């Protein structure tokens, strides 16, 4: 029986293999670690009010995810990566719908149907208090 791989081109020359690069990976690593450290410092110092801090952290997470898509996954519009990029972009609305709408719906439901919070509701004795 003949080797099915005998006539195949060299796999080391495949674009998926050639995509790997030290600069991109090290940049992605350094960016992620430094920005998460900065987020940790800002959060621990409480230098911002809660709402703007949450907005800043959310923006930072989105920025890091986009950076990782480019630097780690190597997504771009080239012939070998365009379908990965397209499938991810088409899935982003599903993430927004599944997380955003679910959280919004249940928090609205809670506000409209549950009794207002009574003093001491969150003060029941636990092993942590």
């Amino acid at each position: 029986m003949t080797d099915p791989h005998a006539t195949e081109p060299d796999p080391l020359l495949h674009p998926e293999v050639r995509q790997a690069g030290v600069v991109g990976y090290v940049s992605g690593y350094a960016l992620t670690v430094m920005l998460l450290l900065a987020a940790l410092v800002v959060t621990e110092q409480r230098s911002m009010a809660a709402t703007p801090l949450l907005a800043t952290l959310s923006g930072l997470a989105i920025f890091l995810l986009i950076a990782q898509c480019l630097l780690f996954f190597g997504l771009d519009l080239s012939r070998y990566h365009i379908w990965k990029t397209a499938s991810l972009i088409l899935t982003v609305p599903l993430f927004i719908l599944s997380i955003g709408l679910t959280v919004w719906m249940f928090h609205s439901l809670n506000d409209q149907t549950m009794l207002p919070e009574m003093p001491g509701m969150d003060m029941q004795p636990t092993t942590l208090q």
Partner: protein
Amino acid sequence: MDAYTGKDGKLPPLWHYGKTEHDPISTKTLGFWLYMISDALIFAGLFAAYGVLDQTMNYAGGPTPAQVVHPIAAFWQTLAVMSSVLSYSLATVAIKRGNARGVVLGIICAIVLAGVFLGLEVSDFISLFGIGATPDRSGFLAAFFMLVAVHGLHMMFGILWMLVLLPQILRFGLNTDVITRLLNLRLFWQFQASIWVCVYVFVYLRGTIQ
């Protein structure tokens, strides 16, 4: 005459052996990418559940996020998981250079660092259990443990996958099949870094400011 019979009277082959129009690395990598996207939707469901249950009523008088999460300690986990992802990613740079020894070394470093990550996570869970913060204590804690543990399970299966691939590299070298598996694992491993960014920001950091 059969509708599927060709002009020469022969049936078309059921399966093309050997090289066909699509190259195996691209098709399998795209297929695995689509699987990873569906996996990301599972995490979307878990984040949605966490977002719903992270509320005073669902603490049920039990621990609040600020009492459960320790972002400074979790930053060591961040370093471990990101370093593991970097190590595996650099192993795939060694594939490009045809350096099987470099691939093996990168994978071993990635396994060790992932083991450190899991060790820190298990130790965190044990300390939480010790103070009565168990998954059955409240809806919030159930969502917290489920979200963090599912990511940890992914890390565990990633380690298992690497352990399976190591002997394949040593036995078969860097052929098409092994390279395809290594590239798919790269997607899987880098995906863990992206999920951890979300876990660290939306669970650990957000938990301290509520």
